[in-house]
């Protein structure tokens, strides 16, 4: 059997697993709603009177309204207005890594980007309009937001999703827009610590989007896809899973010097090393080791300079801002917290509170490390939950949207 066949079978199995038919709770609502709708009289259907060829002729496409040029013009006007009115003093900024004060949380709602202030519950629209915006990410100094703008719906059907990376200030004024980039992994979007660019993963490439002029630069560093992490304390260096001339494994590369890519830990045959982040001092790498032959999964914390590492019986970690703890999944599927120095991963929730996915954007430590923002399954949808990393009560505050994506860092 070839690989093509395997994927088709796998897709079918996944569909069946993920979308088992079940009668939704709103069935009776729909029945009642349709009872209030009048049926069109039979004579009103042209299909009843004319051959289908004639009916089909009448359905020839009408030239669509030129939304795109108008949208581009509107975006240009917004850009000019934004440039004209841009002014103001810079506030005190937090460091790009380490603890910070909690700011507002950015999230997606109906294709718009909003922020909500956890302290007051006040919501602010950052974007609105016809565009389909999603995946907001605060810059590490909390001054700007980057997000993806869907550029694919109005283009040809037979193409992958295409997004534009947009950078706005805290009020939503556009600062920069990239060219359309196909195949962006929505979970592989990360601001550089210096705020000069945003790294996005698109298929097996890392693209650097300039946060000022929107230019896009391909970084050829042997990236193999999925998450990547900027290294604290070092200018513009990324950790990712990739390949160099030395082999496959965890790779660190300076994005401005692609030739600098170096393998810091080789993956043995049958083993995948999936990066989960850095400790705040930039000295230790946290990764998940997936051993396909032994069918084991574990979290490791590796001190890069010495090679000393500890193993934790958990998987898919998210490192706290202060770099001392990590959130992971324990063998029973529960969210748990462990020290980066090793020891047990202490459960802080039930299996049902397993956070969604294992990618970087799946869980967010609050900038002050006082809570962890996750999404959990709830009935037919998702709900946002704040996990207490100390094992206290997990909360579902009214302000927390299920689509919460990014927590703004402020100076302490």
């Amino acid at each position, binding site marked *: 059997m070839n690989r093509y066949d395997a994927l088709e079978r796998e897709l079918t199995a996944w569909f069946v697993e993920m979308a088992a038919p079940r009668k939704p709770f709103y069935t009776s609502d*729909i029945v009642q709603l349709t009872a209030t709708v009048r049926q069109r009289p039979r004579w009103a259907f042209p299909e009843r009177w004319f051959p289908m060829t004639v009916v089909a002729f009448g359905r020839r496409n009408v030239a669509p309204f030129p939304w795109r040029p108008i949208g581009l013009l509107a975006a240009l006007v917004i850009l000019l207005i934004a440039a004209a009115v841009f002014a103001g003093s810079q506030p005190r900024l937090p460091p790009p890594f380490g603890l910070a004060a909690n700011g507002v949380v950015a999230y997606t709602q109906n*294709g718009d980007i909003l922020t909500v202030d956890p302290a007051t519950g006040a919501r602010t629209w950052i974007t609105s309009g*016809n565009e389909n915006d999603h995946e907001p990410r605060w810059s590490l100094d909390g001054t700007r937001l980057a997000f993806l703008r869907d550029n694919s719906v109005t283009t040809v059907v*037979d193409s992958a999703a295409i997004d534009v990376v947009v950078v706005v200030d805290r009020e939503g004024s556009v600062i920069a827009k990239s060219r359309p980039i196909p195949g962006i992994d929505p979970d592989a979007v990360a601001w550089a610590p210096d705020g000069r660019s945003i790294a996005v993963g698109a298929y097996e490439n890392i693209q650097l989007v300039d946060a000022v002029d929107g230019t896009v630069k391909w970084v050829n560093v042997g990236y193999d896809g999925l998450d990547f992490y900027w290294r604290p304390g070092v200018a513009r260096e990324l950790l990712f899973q990739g390949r160099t001339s030395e082999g496959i494994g965890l790779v660190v590369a300076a994005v401005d010097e692609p030739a600098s890519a170096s393998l810091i830990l080789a993956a043995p045959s049958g083993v995948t090393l999936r990066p989960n982040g850095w400790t705040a001092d930039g000295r230790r790498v946290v990764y998940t080791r997936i051993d396909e032959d032994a069918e084991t999964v574990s979290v490791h914390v590796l001190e890069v300079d010495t090679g000393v590492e500890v193993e934790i019986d958990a998987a898919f970690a998210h490192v706290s801002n202060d770099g001392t703890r990590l959130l992971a999944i324990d063998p029973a599927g529960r969210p748990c917290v462990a020290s980066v120095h090793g020891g047990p991963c202490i459960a802080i929730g039930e299996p049902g509170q397993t956070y969604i996915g294992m990618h970087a954007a799946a869980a967010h430590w609050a900038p002050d490390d006082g809570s962890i923002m996750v999404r959990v399954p709830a009935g037919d949808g998702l709900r946002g939950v704040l996990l207490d990393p100390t094992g206290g009560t997990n909360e579902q505050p009214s302000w927390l949207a299920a689509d919460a994506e990014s927590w703004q860092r402020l100076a302490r």
Partner: protein
Amino acid sequence: MDQRELVERAGRGDHDAFAQLVDVSIARLEAVARLILRDPELARDAVQDAYIRAWRDLPGLRDPERFDAWLHRLTVNASLDVVRRRRRRPVEVELEPISPPAVGDETSHIADRDVLERGFRRLKPEQRAVLVLHYYLGMPASAVAETLDIPMGTAQSRLHRALSDLRVAVAANERGAGLVRHKVVA
């Protein structure tokens, strides 16, 4: 009473008959909309729109035997309309599996799911639609074409392209995740 008779009666304004049609079809349509939209709330909107259109336009359905295909077409179109109308990006929504995985397999199960999930999310809703019709509902390309009201060649082309794009996305993710694919396929 068989489906054909229910369709005919509903087409003549018998709402009780339509309610029975809803009852037997809604679970399947809801799953289709959920897969295309990756968002239960949007799926609910799409399913509701589809049934309203179905009830309103049922008198115009000439062949009751084509009711299922017609309903699928309404659902797919309603799903795509929801995307366009509400401009909302389908987000990474976890769909509950029919039965929870064994406790010991939880982490690897999440890893397996994550790769396909991420690959599928990169596709456009139109691409997801052809994959769902073909690989979830088991429709041959000819039925996909009929459901989407597109030529057979276009349906085959879209299927091929969607699967190809998914394969590229999965391959990229798979190398990163290091998953044991044969576990899933076996």
